[in-house]
């Protein structure tokens, strides 16, 4: 599935020998038994955290074959197979649908579930099963809304590592993620260098560019200024869907590229030969695509979660966190075998940004693999250029335990 939710042509049914089959998300409550609440980087405290996750394959006796797959901004734990369980809010969209990376995960696929125990965890603050702003605050009995503490990429790494520990995984064979998921993969290898054997970072970097901050700011502005937003307290009432739709339309543009959009839509009019000279109707294919994407998105995503996710991405600055601003010092922490992949037309996490991380790793003496794949699909390429990514991941994981 691409970032915009289009199903890829090469996905196949749950009965296919290369499918992990029907899947059902699981939940685990973390940070309770030890009576240690989760203290977040923002200073916020959560007394217990529910994490939704899916697993494919079997953990071996040595517990050495775990592969953690990290989802992107609006993704979920349903990475592979076909979802059998529509339980929970905002879930209809995925019922009886393949996971977002079904093309990559399964028996004999690049992330081979015959070899690896694959885990995907929904991030804290999301609206897909893990604790987030739409969850009920146990102290008030009401949805958290904006009283939910601000979460960070570091918190996500913390929660996911805690879940891995609970599953019996001391050292993860590989952490793989694209975009926001790539930020988590990087953070995992920085925060837990002894517990991460290898990492694959696709279309992501040690920070969001200033332009990326700007895009996220506009998205949040649209949501916060929606007349239905009501300071995030809109559950049970009309939702701020106009704002969320605008945020999604803008984000959608940042996932594509000028060349890719031109190739896909050009200046074609929508189902007509000549314009209607309307200001409010949809004239161009490009407009129609954006509005269709926005419409389907607002049905499946919570506006508050969108604020939390984009903020977490904004705040992530690996060099500030781990090297007092020095990226080389930061990179020196990494013990994982690392592969960084960028795509030529990506302007959200541009190749130059990925190169900064790669250069820092070279300066720090960390062995690293890097490829910049020529593609017209922009940031979306990490999910659309299936063949190239599949090959790279298969090659990279070839010698891994499992």
């Amino acid at each position, binding site marked *: 599935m691409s970032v915009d939710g289009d199903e890829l042509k090469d996905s196949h049914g749950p009965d296919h020998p290369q499918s992990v089959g029907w899947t059902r998300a699981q939940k685990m409550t973390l940070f309770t038994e030890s009576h240690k609440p989760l203290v977040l980087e923002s200073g916020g405290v959560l007394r217990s955290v529910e994490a939704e996750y899916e697993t494919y394959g079997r953990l071996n006796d040595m517990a050495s074959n775990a592969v953690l797959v990290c989802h992107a901004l609006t993704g979920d734990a349903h990475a592979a197979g076909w979802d059998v369980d529509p339980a929970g809010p905002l879930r209809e969209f995925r019922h009886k649908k393949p996971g977002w990376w079904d093309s990559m995960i399964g028996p004999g696929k690049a992330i081979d579930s015959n070899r690896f125990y694959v885990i995907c965890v929904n991030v804290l603050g999301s609206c897909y099963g893990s604790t987030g702003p739409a969850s009920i605050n146990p102290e008030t009995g009401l949805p958290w809304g904006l009283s939910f503490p601000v979460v960070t990429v570091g918190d996500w790494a913390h929660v996911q590592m805690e879940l891995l520990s609970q599953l019996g995984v001391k050292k993860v064979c590989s952490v793989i993620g694209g975009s926001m998921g790539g930020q988590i993969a990087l953070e995992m290898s920085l925060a837990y260098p002894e517990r991460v054997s290898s990492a694959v970072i696709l279309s992501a970097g040690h920070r969001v560019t200033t332009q990326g901050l700007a895009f996220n700011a506009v998205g949040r502005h649209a949501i916060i200024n929606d007349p239905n937003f009501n300071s995030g307290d809109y559950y049970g009432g009309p939702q701020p869907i106009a704002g969320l739709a605008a945020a999604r339309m803008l984000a959608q543009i940042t996932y594509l590229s000028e060349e890719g959009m031109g190739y896909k839509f050009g200046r074609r009019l929508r189902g007509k030969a000549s314009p209607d000279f309307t200001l409010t109707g949809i004239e161009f294919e490009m407009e129609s695509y954006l509005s269709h994407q926005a419409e389907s998105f607002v049905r499946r995503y919570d506006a508050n979660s969108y604020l939390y996710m984009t903020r977490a991405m904004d705040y992530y600055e690996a060099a500030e966190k781990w090297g007092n601003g020095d990226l080389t010092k930061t990179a020196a922490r990494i013990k994982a*075998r690392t*592969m960084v992949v960028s795509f030529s037309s990506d302007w959200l996490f541009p190749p130059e940004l990925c190169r900064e991380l*790669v*250069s820092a790793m*070279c*300066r720090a*003496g960390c*062995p*690293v*693999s*890097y*490829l*910049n*794949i020529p593609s017209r699909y922009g940031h979306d390429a990490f999910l659309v250029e299936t063949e190239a990514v599949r*090959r*790279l991941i298969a*090659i*990279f994981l*070839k*010698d891994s335990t499992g």
Partner: protein
Amino acid sequence: MSEIFHFPEGTVTKSELMDLTMTHLLGKLREEYQAPEPPPSTRWQDKVILGEIVPGSTVLDLGCGQGELLGRLIADMGVKGQAVEVDPEAAMAAMELGVPVLSLDVNEIIGDFPDQSFDCVILESTLQTLKEPLKVMREILRVGRGAIVSFPNFGHWRVRLDLAIRGRMPVTPGLPYSWHDTPNIHLCALADFKDYCHENNVNIVKGFALVEGRVSPLGDDSNLSAEEVLLFLEKAK
């Protein structure tokens, strides 16, 4: 107007006569040498390097191709390696052998490696393809405590003959390309390279030559006899 020479079989111009004579001469000269053996299946440089690298050392392989050498150094000799290979297909083949590869132009990345950060930097059959070979030479001797450089020797007698007698760009086993499709843009003779080393305080610690398909230590006549050379370099103290 060109001179005309008269023979019982007919007449030829001076330039045609020169061509005929040179072709004849070239044929004669070639007969005196044994036909060259086909190049060995594994690169001869790899065999020499595998025997010379200290196990467990750190190696940077610039232009690693499909990574056969560094793959073996990492797997068999516990070398900590990093490779650079601009061709993405070759880079992926190298990654498949467990080699960490940066698919970048050498010039784009070499500056990122710290001074003296590798025991050895390998530049195998790559020097002559670089846009700025001297810049890269300076860089590899900055980054590496030692360097291994190999290149086809443009001083080889067959190259000289091709150019002098056939009047054509040389095509030899070590230089198999035509003038228009060759990646070799900065060819040099061993003698040129020795001059460079001398002028830049670079010591040739040891060297090997490929002579008629056989590897031998570098000798006084290598500039004429060596098809390819492999040199172990160090910056003079």
